[in-house]
């Protein structure tokens, strides 16, 4: 009737997460975020991740702008942006992105511009991958919430049914 069931969608979510953990894209910190989500803060994970996306895209743009300038690459500033990206990636459990940042930072400390460019490309790739997968995850989560709402409609609609 409504397509996929709550159970199926829940299984899809878990399967997607399992793949991401297996690939090392996400680590245990992401689970910590999920544990912080409850009735009082039902959208906590997606809120945090949304902030992460906004911040990361800004930082990636800044990094690219710094590297594009062939004359003067401000490696110091690059380091600052990288530390920020590393920190926030670590905080949401984006393990692979964080690891690329570490390699990127090492290259920047050696003023290794080609190395930095390679690292940035890898970073952009990893970021896109993570963003797509997490969007997929949250979409499934939303579908699941809708499916659950249909199955357990609000009590007001069942006047004669005390169950609610």
């Amino acid at each position, binding site marked *: 009737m409504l397509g996929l069931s709550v159970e199926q969608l829940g299984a899809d979510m878990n399967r997607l997460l399992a793949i991401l953990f297996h690939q090392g894209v996400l680590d245990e910190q992401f689970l910590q*975020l999920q544990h912080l989500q409850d009735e009082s803060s039902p959208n906590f994970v997606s809120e945090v991740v949304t902030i992460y996306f906004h911040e990361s895209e800004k930082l990636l743009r800044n990094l690219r702008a710094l590297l594009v300038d062939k004359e003067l690459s401000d490696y110091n500033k690059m380091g600052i942006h990288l530390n920020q990206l590393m920190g926030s990636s670590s905080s949401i459990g984006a393990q692979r992105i964080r690891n690329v940042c570490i390699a990127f930072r090492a290259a920047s400390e050696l003023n290794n511009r080609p190395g930095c460019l390679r690292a940035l490309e890898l970073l952009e790739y990893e970021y896109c991958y993570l963003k797509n997968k997490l969007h997929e995850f949250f979409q499934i989560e939303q579908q699941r919430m809708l499916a659950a709402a249909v199955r357990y409609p609000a009590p007001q609609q069942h006047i004669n049914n005390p169950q609610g």
Partner: protein
Amino acid sequence: MNGLEGETQFHVLAVDDSIIDRKLIERLLKTSSYQVTAVESGVKALEFLGLLDDEEDDEFSNSNCQRVEVNLIITDYSMPAVTGYDLLRKIKKSTSLRDIPVVIMSSENVPSRINSCLEHGAEEFFLKPVRQSDVNKLRPHLMKGKKEIQNINKRKPVEECLSPDRTRTRLNHDLE
């Protein structure tokens, strides 16, 4: 969680320049039923605590007594302008605020940094990302502050934490 002293709600001041980490620490603290004020910089923290004038805080400047009571301060180490370390030093120099427990957070595991913070009065040093298990360690510090324990004998012995794990606790609290 029993309320031995009635509905004592602890108020924690959280300081971090990262929006994400601020949101995280705020949520972690709230799930432990603490009241939270989260600020984005050391300067804002000083402002909130009434220490912004940078004057020597003495018995005559009692304006701090009227402020909202803070039971614990948890701050990131690496922040622009006023670092967590700067904040720690200023708090410990203040006659009215020095007894507030201070906890430092950092994404980097630098032993000299950790030791320095602990030596200058930080109660704990947490490595980021901070987790629920870390936040659970705050309660004893908060309880101690509220009860103003004088009796050293009643305190649990603090174990030396040579961390394979991610937090360090200061030894020999208040033995003077």
